[in-house]
């Protein structure tokens, strides 16, 4: 009886094994690409113009095809399914049999460049899901680039000056937007730029795992992440402070450009980079620099804006009454050293990476509308100040906007070193005259209700703020 039991076990497990092996063999013998190639062969025989081509089509053997790209260190098997990519007879067929669109292959022969160098995806894979790397349960870091972003790849080997009228309009437009929307105000690129955001060097080759995809509505790719993050930063990253205002079309362009910032370098032999730059890219003038580094936060600089994400007011830096009291030295120091405790970065070469010359140009640009007339002197040093009195006045008149400890809110942060070390004369003048078109009224005017002595006391108190402990409520 025992023997019989074992025989049954052996028989049944043998059956299971046979079933498994036949299934595996069947799967192995009928891969996706074989079906595609068989269909391609039929198409060829049907489309053949003459008997000669038909004969050759009949002789075509169906086999795994690959491009060995020694120079690029890649192996692309895409042509196992996309067999007709170079065949002019296949111009009107459907994908995957279709010939490559445009005349790109004329100068980028498949033999030499392959496919994944432009389109990305997993070249060695032999089925669609793994080769394209898009969709659920695909684990390839560089999924196939959507055609809307494909110009990204052109910029790897070609200058923007070359691309601007040769099919690279999107990436060129993206680069221009990148400069004009002030992206580098927060994002470092090649060592220059602010520190609030992530550095963008090589972002195009960063793996998907670096980008939390939870709130992405579209396809889960890095490009899509970047696009949605440009459109709605705080939906994608809840604590993002990014200030960006782009139309969907602009987001497309910007994404195309940003994705072209890749770490990988195409071999020199295959690249056509000369280092030539667009005419308006070279311009190192105040306005261009202001747009590149400042405009994202300060905008036109004429109005002060309360920013929800920053939880503070962004000052109006070209406000005439500010320019009237603030001298070049003060403004230059603000740009160079930044404002500690706020989002304002230190722009000196050791920090955000601007040269002294560039900072000078930005300062010249922002102060170009400085009113001619100077404010009357306050004469702070002539007053005998009473800090305690100043504290009382501060608590009743200033704290509601500037915060109990001067930490800022609707009003600016007064604890930071730049204000603390500023000329008291300037502070006094500001309190006396206020700031036009902002919430900072003129406290020295009839309605302001502070006399000169009171202003001097408050200034004295403000200058002690940084020594007070800042307690969160």
């Amino acid at each position: 009886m025992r023997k019989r039991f074992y025989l049954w076990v052996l028989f049944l497990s043998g059956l299971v094994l046979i079933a498994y092996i036949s299934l595996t063999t069947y799967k192995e013998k009928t891969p996706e690409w074989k079906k595609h190639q068989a269909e391609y062969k039929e198409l060829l025989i049907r489309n053949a113009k003459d008997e000669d081509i038909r004969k050759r089509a009949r002789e075509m053997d169906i086999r795994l095809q690959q491009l060995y790209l020694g120079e690029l260190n890649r192996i692309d098997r895409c042509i196992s399914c996309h067999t007709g990519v170079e065949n002019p007879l296949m111009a009107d067929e459907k994908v995957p049999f279709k010939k490559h669109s445009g005349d790109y292959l004329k100068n980028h022969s498949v033999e030499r460049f392959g496919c994944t160098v432009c389109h990305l995806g997993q070249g060695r894979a032999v089925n669609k899901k793994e080769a394209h790397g898009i969709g659920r349960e695909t684990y390839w870091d560089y999924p196939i680039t959507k055609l809307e972003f494909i110009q990204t790849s052109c910029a790897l080997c070609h200058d923007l000056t070359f691309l601007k009228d040769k099919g690279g309009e999107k990436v060129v437009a993206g680069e221009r937007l990148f400069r004009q929307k002030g992206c580098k105000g927060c994002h470092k690129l090649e060592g220059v730029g602010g520190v609030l955001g992530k550095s963008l060097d090589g972002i195009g080759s960063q793996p998907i795992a670096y980008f939390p995809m939870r709130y992405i509505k579209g396809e889960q790719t890095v490009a899509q992440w970047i696009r949605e993050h440009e459109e709605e930063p705080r939906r994608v990253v809840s604590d993002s402070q990014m200030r960006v205002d782009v139309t969907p079309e602009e987001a497309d362009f910007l994404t195309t450009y940003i994705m072209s910032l890749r770490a990988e370098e195409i071999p020199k032999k295959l690249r056509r980079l000369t280092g030539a730059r667009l005419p308006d890219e070279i311009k190192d003038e105040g306005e261009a620099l202001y747009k590149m580094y400042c405009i994202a936060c300060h905008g036109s600089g004429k109005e002060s804006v309360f920013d929800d994400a920053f939880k503070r007011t962004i000052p109006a830096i070209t406000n005439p009454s500010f320019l009237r009291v603030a001298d070049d030295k003060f403004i230059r120091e603000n740009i160079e050293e930044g404002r500690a405790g706020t989002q304002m970065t230190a722009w000196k070469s050791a920090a955000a990476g601007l040269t002294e010359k560039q900072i000078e140009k930005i300062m010249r640009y922002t102060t170009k509308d400085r009113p001619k007339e100077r404010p009357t002197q306050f004469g702070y040093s002539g007053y005998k100040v009473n800090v305690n009195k100043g504290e009382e006045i501060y608590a009743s008149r200033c704290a509601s906007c500037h915060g109990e400890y001067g930490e800022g809110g609707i009003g600016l942060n007064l604890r930071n070193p730049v204000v603390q070390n500023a000329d008291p004369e300037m502070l006094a003048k500001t309190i006396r005259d206020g700031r036009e078109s902002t919430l900072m009224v003129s406290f020295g005017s009839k309605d302001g209700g502070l006399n000169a002595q009171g202003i001097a006391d408050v200034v004295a108190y403000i200058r002690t703020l940084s020594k007070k402990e800042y307690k969160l409520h």
Partner: protein
Amino acid sequence: MSSETIDKTEISRRSFLSLAALWSAVLPAIALLGGIFRMVKPDVHYEESIRFRIGTAENFPVGTMKKLDDKKVFIFSTDNGLHAISSICTHLGCIVNITEWGFQCPCHGSRYNQNGKVIAGPAPRSLSWHEISQDIDGSLVVDASREVPAGTVLKLKA
């Protein structure tokens, strides 16, 4: 008697079971062995293909010669048609230069005539002629793994 017949069928059933069990073990084993031997011959190799496209016939106007350095081959286009001659010297594998009378190897001075036949030097064999054919899409394909007798040309239709 009856008990004997029952016994017999019992035995034959059992032997059927043992046979089936045996075969259900042997068959997968054979299939697996077959699979293992199938692995010996790969579908593709991790190396430069020795069968390569060289573009369409337009790239090779009649009366011209092209030296494809990275593919190590000369492509000649004559009135008769196209032919491809290897540029690898049969002596020690240097790349031969083309001269007005044929080919000359810079390493040890082997000389070949215009058809690649050895005329001087240490080279043991003539330069090989590769098969050249036209693919379905009209592009030319050189197969360096297939040697053709000297003088074979690919005639192109006008």
